[in-house]
């Protein structure tokens, strides 16, 4: 479109030389750039194809009803579909349980940090705290896993919870909570920061204190962005892999005791893929069925978060 405008202006001038090569290059660049943008579509297509393709093969051996209703997970010991139990609920519950514990830690702390950074911290302090939180966000999850296993668990064992097992869901989930604090804090802070100044000033004019402004005016005004940050945090917790694989152990059991080992969906995939599982074996197919379940769960959560973020953008 720009090309036409330019030609219109330039025609008839000696200074301006028509160049076919330039036009060809313009078109070529456009095609190449567009192809790069399509890579993302291909990626999604590949993920859906692989997960649901292999999961489909799995569901021909083990019915989807068994997958959803059985209450044990013994895929590791099963050589034929008949002699194992494939209740996804066991792994899914571990994922949900660990997510709940992590959220108890991360959501209030993340929101508190967001309020502090946006409403209380001086500009100078903010300039130090925000990068520090970003560094926290940049710590690889394997490092958190190591920390949960070699520091948090022995620490809990030595102080308040002597009965805790070496591999347990509690330490892993607590550390996972710390891991998602920066996600919650930074998305919430963006939402809180976007609340117009006038709202705060109006509340101050009515005699509200700083805390009252923060909790009764600013937070409610930013609520959809805050909810979005919570959902994003939950989504990260659901998909978190290495902390669970390292510190929560590999015991697929349905329990509510956080001091014991439980295997999440992600940790199961790691356990199977770090061993030898030849393509086409039953165990190989289970990881794709588990992966597909995980993919659907996170997709749902991300869609909810996306919807909330868009809503919060439209408010002002």
């Amino acid at each position, binding site marked *: 479109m*720009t090309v036409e*405008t*330019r030609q219109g202006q330039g025609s008839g001038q000696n200074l*301006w030389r028509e160049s076919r090569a330039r036009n060809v290059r*313009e078109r070529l660049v456009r095609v190449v*750039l567009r192809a*790069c*943008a*399509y*890579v*993302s579509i291909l*990626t*999604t297509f*590949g*993920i859906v194809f*692989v*997960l649901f393709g292999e999961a489909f093969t799995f569901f021909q051996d083990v019915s989807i009803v068994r997958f959803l209703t059985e209450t044990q997970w013994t895929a590791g010991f099963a050589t034929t579909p008949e002699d194992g139990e494939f209740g996804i609920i066991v792994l899914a519950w571990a994922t949900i349980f660990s997510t709940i514990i992590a959220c108890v830690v991360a959501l*209030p702390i*993340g*929101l508190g*940090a967001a309020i*502090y950074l946006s*409403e209380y911290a001086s500009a100078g302090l903010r*300039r130090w*705290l925000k990068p520090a*939180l*970003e*560094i*926290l966000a*940049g*710590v690889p999850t*394997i*490092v*958190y896993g*190591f920390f949960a296993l*070699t*520091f948090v668990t022995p620490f809990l064992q030595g102080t308040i919870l002597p009965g805790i097992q070496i591999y347990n869901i509690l330490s892993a989930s607590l550390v996972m909570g710390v891991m998602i604090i920066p996600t919650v*804090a930074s998305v919430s802070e963006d939402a809180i920061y976007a609340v117009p100044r006038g709202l705060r000033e109006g509340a101050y004019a009515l*005699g509200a*204190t*700083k*805390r009252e402004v923060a*909790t*009764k005016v600013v937070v409610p005004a930013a609520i959809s962005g805050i909810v979005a940050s919570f959902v994003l945090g939950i989504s990260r917790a659901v*998909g978190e*892999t*290495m902390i669970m*694989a*390292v510190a929560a152990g590999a015991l697929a059991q349905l329990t509510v005791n956080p001091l014991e080992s439980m295997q999440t969906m*992600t940790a199961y995939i*790691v356990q199977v*893929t*770090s061993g030898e599982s030849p*393509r086409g074996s039953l165990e190989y197919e289970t990881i*794709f069925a588990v*992966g597909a379940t*995980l*993919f659907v769960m996170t*997709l749902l*959560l991300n869609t909810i978060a996306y919807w909330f973020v868009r809503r919060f953008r439209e408010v002002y």
Partner: protein
Amino acid sequence: MSQSSTEVTRQKEQEPGTGGNFKTSVGARHGWDRFFTALVFAATLIGLAVLGVLLVDVGRQGVPVLSWHFFTSLGSADAENAGFLPAILGSLWLLGIVLIVAVPVGIAAAVYLEEYANDNWLNRLIEINISNLAGVPSIIYGLLGLGVFVYIFGLGRSILTGGLILSLLILPVIIIATREAVRAVPQSVREGAYALGATQWEAIRHHVLPQALPGALTGTILALSRAIGETAPLIAIGAVPYMTFLPEGLLSSFTAMPIQIYNWTGEPEEAFQNLAAAGIVVLMLVLLVSNAGAIWLRNKFQRRN
């Protein structure tokens, strides 16, 4: 908090009618204010305190293990002889592939979406798709690598597969960061270039991209450090537990720093835990330097605007 909130409500109810009966309970409300300030300040510090404890704990275990031998030795099943060299080289190979693949593709896609794409259903789909991909757990990318790159494309459990998977993984991050940087370039810059007879690509190439570079670079560095620390997808495609040789080429089997750390962590002997801690010290140093660099770059860029 509940006490103070009832007071505020009561005070509001009383305000209109009664003149002399006006109570503000300023003292109590300011007390709650101080308490709340302390609470949110503590919330901000908790994460950082954990980071501090983590660094000290890992450093205490890992630093004594760091030696010339650690950096120059091959992998071994025996803790005395085990070194980190194959893991370091593996990570460098992966980083190289990601630099060659993900950075240009990501920047190109971002430029397309910001500068060329019309508002039609396909481009909206791409946009929604990218933000969804950014939220897909990394282990799922590992399954993509295992199913498609290892088996269907026949690339095997190789460095190339690892690099490509990490590239796909961080592509959305690079695209999102670059788009923001490109969007921040004022429209007048493009118009100025057009006025001088530049084509759209010339305007982008010579004027928009150079201005967007610091922002794009910051996002890219953060994405690259994520790639360096990423573990789960590499385990899924089958990086090897320890290497007694160095990676030789794109199709060579490989290990990487986080994989080596994961495998050492899984060993029962304490000597291996210390090796893992030493590996973490190296990994964290690399990440701290690159993240600090990215943040410094952004601050410098922001101040100029």
